Every structure is written in structure tokens, then in C-alpha cells.
């Protein structure tokens, strides 16, 4: 039987700790809309999105009302647009038309964002990929709800440095095209290493090509709930700290699981995954930085912050995994600076620097997120920041991302105001020394050695293969030496004098 304290604890979480389900995102495959005629393509894309997502918003609102935990965002992700538009688009301006079609479909079904104006170019770019990337500044300036992402690297493929270089310019141009709104366009543009096909969160959501025709992915949240739970165990050991985070994450994720199953049933669309995330908002108390402070740091960014974030991320996953039948997406803690009031405050007083944020991205769920930088930051420096982040993702086999906003006309210390969930942020200083000779080299950074996992079936500890050559490892050489020694003993006997004598006598 339900207990009084359980009910009131839950309602307290909603009323005072900003507990919510952050997003129900419907992933829609548009692969079957591909058409060589642009008009017909746009017609099919608009038709499919509005048909599939017709009831998404009303069902999300109904579920929120009936269970008492609100669903903040209802969103759509689509197959990467570079694949959809490849046959029909003759240039960047044609991709802008696709973006406008997506925007009008999003507005008509009432979702606040549609993601998937994307290209996956971690190994190379097709002409369509190049056109889509070139169209991003115009597309984001002309549309309101379209989000764009570009995958620039992966552990399996390495990093496409040509695309990294290109994206430095694209970020700058996007900022320029939306300068009247503090370069807001860049808040809808993210670059990835190892992107997730089923990520429900924006700006990086897209519907991967291996996904079904239509799925529902749910992103949970609740930094305020974790913070309040931790405030009750101040001074306790790490064991108690970790257990508290795990238990709280379990409860939060169960809501996500329930909502995902219920939305799936009501819409007749399969349930994809629950993304076990702590996603902050600019609301007071809805902050990852507050959790870090609750764990014992004076400000987010102080020494110890990376360790604290690592604990948080890992325990959220451990608590959440058991709570959901399918876990996916980005799963972990987000650290967007402008969207997290206390994070923005820490950046403002200098406790949190870009370099510390980069270190934190090694252990958080994504990467450098919603960071306002000076408008005069060179494109090559932005490419350098992107390359660093891609390298962290590639080597550590994790998703990393960059969403920086070079705010045109503003410098260090000024404030950029994005409004709503995107918040506002003091512009952070960027290392002033250049890296243009590095990023201008062109070509690809090869995949790291630990990406070679599928060569010749079961991996042998004694040999590894490069192409057709088999090379012995140290362990292999040792085993070989022991075997050779044994054969020699059998033939000639042991070299000890006593053994040699016995061998002779025999």
C-alpha cells in the first residue's frame, strides 16, 4: 500500500525541487521520404512528421497531468538531413528549404525543437554533407525550432579534421547571422564525437539510421532532487554519498520509464530508451553546480570538481540502469554553463574556466556546452577547441560535444542573454594563443589503437594483427620462449649438471 510520506516526498520534489521529465522525443525515420525532386521531398517530410507527431504534445501534456510530474518538452528528432536531402539538393540553399520545412512541421505539431538537421562526417564528407554544413548558418538564422548537429569524429573512425576546420567557420558565421539575438543560432548547433543515435536531448538529437521507423525516447532530469537528497547526508562518507545519489537516480528514472511506456502505449509507437540524465535549467535549485557544491566544493570548478562530477555521473548511471528496461542516449550529468545558474555564477567569478570545463568533459555525459566566448575568437581557435574535445571523446570512447557561442560584438565580462531554458552567461576568456597551423593541416586523425577490436575473431593475448601480419606481444614472446625451452629439454635434457648426468645414465 502506498504510504503517506512517499506521496508527499514525490510532490515535494515537483513543487520545490524542480522534478520533471525533461523531454519526450519522438524519433522519426525520414529515409522513406527520399526523393530526387525537392518539392516532393519537402511535401513528404512535412506530411510524415505532422502525421506521426500529431498527438505527441497532447499525449505528453495528458500524462504530465495524470501522474503529476510535468513533461517540459515535447520534441522530434529525424534521420540526418544530409542523407534525406542528398538526392534532391543541388546546393546549400536547397538544404535551407528542408530546414524551413522542418521548422513549419515543428510549429504545426507544437513541439519546441526538431533535431536532425545533421551530417555524420566522422570519416569523410559527401557533396551533400558539404552542402548541408554550408547551409547551417542560413538555416539556423531563418528557422526558429530547427537544431543542427554534425558528427566530426568517433573512436572507430578517428577525427575528420577537414570538417573540424570547416565547423570553426560555420560556428562563426552562424554567430554572425544571428548577432541581433546574441548569436543565438550557435545555441542550436552542436558538434559531436561518438554521437548517440537515440539521444532525446537538443541540440544534438537525431534519429540514427539503424533505428526503427518511429520510436519514443525519454530524457529525465532532476538535479534539484539529487541536491536536496545530498543535503541530508552532509559530512557522511563517500559510500553514503554514492548510495544516496543511486537511490535518487533510481526514483527519477522510474518516472521516465513509466512515462515512456505510457506515451508509447497511447501513441502506438515503440518505446526506445530512457536517457538517465541530470539536465539543469536556469531555475534556482535546478543545477548540477549546486550538487557539486553540496558534495563539498566551494564553487563548481574548484579542485575536486572533476572527481565530484565523475562520482555523480557514475552513480546516476548505476542507479538508473536498474530502473529502466532500455537505457541509452547520453545518460549522465550535463554541464551547460548558461543553462545552469550556479555554473554561470562560478564562471562569472572565475572559479570555473574553459580549461577546467574541458577536464570535466572527460567524466560528464557530453562536453563543452552552452559556453559564451568572445565574438572575436578566431575560427581556427574554435576549431582547436573542437579538436581537443573530439580527441577526448575518441580516446576515451565516450560521447563528447562542443556547443560554444562566439557572441558577436561582446567580449570577456559582458553578458549574453539567450532567454528561456537557454539562460544567460558571462562571456568566458579563451586562450589567446593560436593553433591555426595545426588545424589547417587538413586530412584525418587516424583512429586510436584500441579501436581495432574486430580483427580475426577472438582476440589473442599473444598476437595482434595489423592487416595480414601477425605480431607477437610481450606475453606471446614469453610463452614462445617457455615452449622452446621445454622442447630443448626434451631433446637434450636439462642443462643442470646433475640432470645432464642422469640423462646420460638413462
Amino acid at each position: 500500500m502506498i504510504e503517506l510520506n512517499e506521496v508527499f516526498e514525490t510532490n515535494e520534489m515537483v513543487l520545490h525541487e524542480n522534478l520533471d521529465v525533461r523531454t519526450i522525443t519522438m524519433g522519426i525515420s525520414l529515409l522513406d521520404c527520399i526523393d530526387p525532386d525537392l518539392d516532393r521531398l519537402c511535401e513528404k517530410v512535412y506530411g510524415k512528421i505532422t502525421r506521426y507527431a500529431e498527438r505527441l504534445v497532447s499525449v505528453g501534456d495528458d500524462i504530465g497531468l495524470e501522474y503529476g510530474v510535468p513533461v517540459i518538452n515535447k520534441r522530434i528528432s529525424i534521420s540526418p538531413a544530409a542523407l534525406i536531402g542528398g538526392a534532391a539538393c543541388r546546393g546549400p540553399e536547397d538544404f535551407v528549404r528542408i530546414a524551413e520545412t522542418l521548422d513549419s512541421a515543428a510549429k504545426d505539431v507544437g513541439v519546441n525543437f526538431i533535431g536532425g538537421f545533421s551530417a555524420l562526417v566522422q570519416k569523410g564528407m559527401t557533396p551533400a554533407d558539404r552542402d548541408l554544413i554550408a547551409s547551417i548558418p542560413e538555416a539556423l538564422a531563418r528557422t526558429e525550432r530547427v537544431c543542427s548537429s554534425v558528427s566530426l569524429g568517433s573512436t572507430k573512425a578517428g577525427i575528420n579534421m577537414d570538417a573540424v576546420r570547416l565547423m570553426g567557420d560555420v560556428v562563426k558565421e552562424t554567430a554572425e547571422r544571428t548577432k541581433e539575438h546574441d548569436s543565438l543560432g550557435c545555441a542550436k548547433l552542436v558538434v559531436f564525437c561518438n554521437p548517440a543515435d537515440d539521444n532525446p536531448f537538443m541540440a544534438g538529437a537525431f534519429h540514427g539510421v539503424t533505428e526503427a521507423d518511429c520510436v519514443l525516447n525519454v530524457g529525465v532530469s532532476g538535479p534539484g532532487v539529487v541536491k536536496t537528497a545530498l543535503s541530508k547526508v552532509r559530512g557522511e562518507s563517500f559510500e553514503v554519498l554514492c548510495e544516496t545519489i543511486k537511490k535518487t537516480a533510481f526514483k527519477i528514472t522510474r518516472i521516465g520509464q513509466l512515462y515512456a511506456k505510457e506515451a508509447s502505449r497511447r501513441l502506438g509507437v515503440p518505446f526506445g530508451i530512457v536517457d538517465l540524465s541530470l539536465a539543469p535549467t536556469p531555475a534556482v535549485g535546478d543545477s548540477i553546480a549546486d550538487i557539486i557544491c553540496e558534495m563539498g566544493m566551494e564553487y563548481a570548478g574548484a579542485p575536486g570538481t572533476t572527481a565530484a562530477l565523475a562520482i555523480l555521473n557514475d552513480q546516476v548511471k548505476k542507479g538508473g540502469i536498474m530502473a529502466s528496461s532500455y537505457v541509452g542516449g547520453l545518460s549522465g550529468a550535463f554541464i551547460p554553463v548558461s543553462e545552469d545558474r550556479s555554473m554561470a555564477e562560478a564562471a562569472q567569478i572565475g572559479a570555473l574556466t574553459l580549461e577546467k570545463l574541458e577536464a570535466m568533459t572527460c567524466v560528464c555525459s557530453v562536453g563543452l556546452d552552452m559556453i559564451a566566448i568572445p565574438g572575436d575568437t578566431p575560427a581556427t581557435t574554435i576549431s582547436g577547441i573542437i579538436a581537443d574535445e573530439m580527441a577526448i571523446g575518441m580516446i576515451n570512447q565516450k560521447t563528447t560535444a562542443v556547443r560554444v557561442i562566439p557572441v558577436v560584438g561582446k567580449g570577456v565580462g559582458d553578458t549574453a542573454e539567450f532567454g528561456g531554458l537557454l539562460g544567460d552567461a558571462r562571456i568566458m576568456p579563451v586562450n589567446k594563443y593560436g593553433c591555426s597551423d595545426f588545424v589547417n593541416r587538413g586530412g584525418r586523425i587516424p583512429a586510436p589503437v584500441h579501436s581495432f577490436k574486430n580483427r580475426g575473431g577472438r582476440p589473442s593475448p599473444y598476437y595482434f594483427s595489423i592487416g595480414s601480419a601477425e605480431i607477437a606481444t610481450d606475453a606471446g614472446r614469453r610463452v614462445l620462449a617457455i615452449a622452446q625451452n621445454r622442447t630443448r629439454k626434451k631433446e637434450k635434457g636439462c642443462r643442470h649438471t646433475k640432470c645432464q648426468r642422469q640423462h646420460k645414465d638413462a
Partner: protein
Amino acid sequence: MNRVIVTLVGKDRVGLIASVCTFFANNNINILDIKQTTVQEFINMMMIVDMDGYGGTFESMEKGLEKVGRDIGCTIKAQREDIFNMMYRI
């Protein structure tokens, strides 16, 4: 069975629970359980009700309860039971 948890929070006075119960009686909603605590002059009350006999939608019941809440000066909230089973039971 269509079980819903109804909570009431507010300043205690005569007739609070009677008002809520009257609403349920008038709308053919069966009360399965009632629990409450009173701290100083404030009351926290929880009811488990069965909506099976109710003719309207969840939203209309929620609105009806909201009106009762306004009349008696309390906050009343209705939620489907599943959410608590999910969060607190494995």
C-alpha cells in the same frame, strides 16, 4: 480498478475531508483508503480512490477537485497510483 491518489494540503478546519468526500460521492468515485497527519494547524491528507464508476475524464475530475480546493482554501492534487508504485516498489 482505476486507482488514483488524491492529496490535500492546507490549514486544518472543520469540514475539509467532508467537502472532498462529498465531491467523490456526487461523482460516483469510491474511496478505498484515507490517511492523514496533522502538524500544528496544518493537515496532510491522502486518499486512494477508484475512478472506475466516474463518467468523465481524468482532467475533468482534476478540475472538479481544484474547484473544491479553492472553496475550502486547500491544495488538492490527483495522480494515478502507478507513479508511486514505480518509484517506491521494485
